[in-house]
């Protein structure tokens, strides 16, 4: 074929497209507009995991506010150049309030927020704000600490296995809090960590879980997005602590408890303030206190005394009496990180890049 015929073919294609454009849709009518709320998800919703919990909250606000709001979600949005366009498209299409629920959406959200000063943006797990952009996050580590108490009491080998995704502070914080929770009731407890370098790869998560069991772990937990680890525990007849969502239907015997995320309360408040016209950008880091995080259904095999212990600790964390990171605290190389009685600052938490005593190995980013 030569150039002429080729460009001809393309021209015709273009003409065909233009013809089709004549059939374009009519504009929607605008009467009493409900508040349009958009959600940008990094992964498919699925049945458990990070995005699933955000979508549960979306469904909850839909139910609560009825026809006063209209919600829309865009799933599987890759972090990167495409995210900015998706967020902008939502803003352009009249979505007044937009939640972007992955760290990688921070800079794209900020860019769009600057271009659409009248829209409200809420970004999860980041640290940047603007006049019309706030961020929110949860103190997942508080739930991890409570789960650690259960694990510390239930382990027989004194070894727990932790399947982790990427060495970012949020994950490291969780590992450390879990370890401190375990050792608060069982000073001999050790935690082994395997990094799978993926948020979501059921096969690899399964392999990592099997490996940890083969090295003596009799309780598994995970910071990854699938149900593979608790399913592996069920198959290997060891215990598991699920993360993000309650996964007991996947592992009715193995799951001792689940550290669960809850965004409903927060989203309800944000939507209410947007409806009232009182929305302001905020920096929210809620925990057990604000109902952001919980330790889910505790398996009946856990003795009542242990459940009581967990409940006490939970109440103490909520009231501020207990903090998972209070000195004396050493890292696993023996260096003192907190002096006796000293409570860790939020700043130090958010930059945590060491393992505490009781975690085996060395943090990969160091």
């Amino acid at each position, binding site marked *: 074929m030569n150039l002429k015929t080729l460009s001809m073919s393309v021209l015709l294609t273009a003409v065909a497209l233009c013809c089709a454009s004549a059939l374009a849709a009519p504009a929607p009518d605008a009467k009493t507009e409900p508040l349009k709320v958009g959600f940008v998800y990094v992964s498919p919703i699925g049945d458990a995991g990070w995005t699933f919990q955000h979508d549960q909250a979306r469904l909850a606000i839909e139910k609560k506010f009825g026809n006063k709001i209209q919600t829309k979600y865009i799933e599987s949005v890759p972090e990167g150049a495409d995210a900015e366009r998706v967020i902008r498209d939502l803003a352009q299409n009249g979505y007044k309030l937009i939640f972007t629920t992955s760290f990688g959406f921070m800079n794209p959200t900020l860019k769009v927020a600057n271009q659409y000063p009248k829209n409200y943006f809420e970004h999860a797990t980041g640290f940047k704000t603007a006049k019309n952009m706030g961020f929110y996050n949860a103190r997942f580590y508080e739930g991890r600490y409570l789960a650690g108490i259960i694990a510390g009491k239930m382990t027989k080998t004194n070894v727990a296995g932790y399947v982790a995704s990427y060495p970012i502070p949020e994950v490291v914080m969780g590992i450390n809090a879990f370890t401190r929770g375990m050792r608060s009731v069982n000073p001999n407890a050790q935690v082994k960590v395997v*990094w*799978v370098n993926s948020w*979501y790869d*059921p096969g690899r998560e399964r392999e990592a879980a099997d490996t940890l069991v083969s090295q003596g772990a009799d309780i598994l937990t995970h910071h990854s997005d699938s149900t593979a680890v608790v399913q592996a525990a069920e198959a290997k007849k060891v215990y598991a602590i699920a993360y993000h969502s309650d996964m007991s239907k996947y592992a009715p015997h193995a799951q001792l408890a689940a550290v669960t995320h809850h965004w409903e309360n927060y989203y309800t408040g944000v939507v209410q303030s947007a409806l009232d016209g009182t929305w302001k950008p905020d920096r929210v880091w809620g925990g057990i206190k604000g109902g952001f995080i919980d330790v889910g259904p505790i398996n009946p095999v856990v003795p009542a005394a242990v459940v009581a212990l967990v409940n006490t600790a939970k109440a103490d964390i909520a009231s501020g009496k207990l903090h998972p990171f209070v000195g004396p605290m050493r890292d696993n190389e023996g260096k003192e990180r907190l002096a006796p009685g000293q409570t860790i600052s939020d700043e130090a938490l958010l930059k945590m890049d060491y393992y505490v005593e009781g975690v085996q190995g060395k943090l990969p980013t160091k």
Partner: protein
Amino acid sequence: MDAFVNLIALTLAAGTPLALAALGELVTEKSGVLNLGVEGMMTVGAVAAFIVAVNTHSPWLGIAAGAAAAAVLALVFAFIVLSLMANQVATGLALSLFGIGLASFVGRDYVAKVIDGLPALHLPVLSDLPIVGALFFSYSPIIYLTLALFALTQWVLTRTRAGLIVRAVGESPPAAHAIGLPVIRVRYLCVLFGGLCSGLAGAYLAVAYTPLWAEGMIAGRGWIAVALVVFATWKPWRALAGAYLFGFVTLAQFQVQAWGTAISPQFLSMLPYLATIVVLTLISRNALTVRLNAPVSLGKPFHPGD
């Protein structure tokens, strides 16, 4: 000893989906067709297997359905590249795209479902023997099926008339055509076999290994399978060894991590891929082995009427 037996068991479990998919692709390529759509076929196999297993409560029916669904997809591919003579590389890539899209579309209502996975083999006395029981008689039935399929394929390819025909078609379609062999029909069948195996591999992941269905659960294993075929220089036993080697290296790096080393997990994760490159290079140095085994007409379309 226990740790060793354990590692063997884990390696077999992790390497089996790779081995199955690689075997199918190997036969496809032996006939001269390059199908890069393995990832898509595995995904469709996984979702079909899971859906049927949920609805019939029979993992075995699920596995059969997975293999069949992927075979249908392979037929679409075969029609486009064999009957319409489209480019195989591009069509294979499009097949992956299509398969993944199709699977997540039909599987949307099934991500929340739970099934009892295919149980591992348990023989009354044998499986309970110390060490020997764990080492030989306690795996998922699919693992034994995979080994049998490899033995069968090896035998067919090297010892039978059918194998000779496949190889002849892959070597020189015009010559095969000239002596009256139905080139296109043979290629159709080989592509179909590739689809069946890929589907089986996906089904194994969905109803036996993890067992669950979710988007993206194949996570690149189809690509590894394609790579393993070249790595194996189109020899079934090498593909099998390669698949288990790959599984082993992946697990070994998890083991090393769990012992608590200071090596970055990213570098450890690179190991299986680097190992593949190194071994391939070593094998390829000897020109003869490659030339003797590589199907000469790989990737080239053939039309008998030209």
